[in-house]
């Protein structure tokens, strides 16, 4: 069955420190992978996505993620965290469906990031 695991429920980092949020997926084929961010009381904003090609993808707000097929992972990284990065982060896999693409997103449980000044 398709699934996404985010092992860390809460992470706290100091402002300016580096960040890595973990994501592991279970999927039978080459996945479409996404990271979304949700600020308190807000909707979901796409940070970055991986469909194919270069396994290191760059996103908005200085985030990047690396797809590692051998580890079934798609970890999100940022070299220097800002206080405004405090939010909930969701990893998702696109489950394949009609037209050869994906027809739904399967989300992980999310990681809540707190940033200390």
């Amino acid at each position, binding site marked *: 069955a398709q699934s996404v695991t985010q092992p860390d429920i809460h992470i706290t980092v100091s402002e300016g420190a580096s960040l890595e949020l973990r994501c592991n997926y279970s999927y039978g084929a080459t996945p479409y992978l*996404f990271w*979304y961010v*949700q600020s308190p009381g*807000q*909707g*979901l*904003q*796409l940070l970055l*996505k991986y*469909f194919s090609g270069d396994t290191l993808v760059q996103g908005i707000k200085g985030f990047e993620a690396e797809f590692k097929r051998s580890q079934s992972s798609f970890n999100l990284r940022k070299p220097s965290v800002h206080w405004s990065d405090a939010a*909930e982060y*969701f990893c*998702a896999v696109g489950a394949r*469906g*009609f*037209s*050869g*693409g*994906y*027809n*739904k*997103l*399967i*989300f992980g*449980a*999310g990681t809540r990031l707190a940033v200390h000044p």
Partner: protein
Amino acid sequence: DTAVSQTPKYLVTQMGNDKSIKCEQNLGHDTMYWYKQDSKKFLKIMFSYNNKELIINETVPNRFSPKSPDKAHLNLHINSLELGDSAVYFCASSQGSQETQYFGPGTRLLVL
């Protein structure tokens, strides 16, 4: 120039009532979705429509009935609301099945 909009933003109602949530996208997309986010922030797909046709129904109770009057709108009607329906409901849209899904701001439903 909101891309995906939902109304209302907040909805407080009594058990047993019937309510609707509306979603509109101005991105020209042909595929729309409803997701439910529970109190533990877990997000799960409910429905997906492509060109006004239902393509996904993820074992959602039949009290939930989506309706797509045109490609730009996907409404969600809920009959006989229950306490467990309290959640945040997100609408999303994409162009076909191979592009990014863009999410609306969510509708926070509280059933008392």
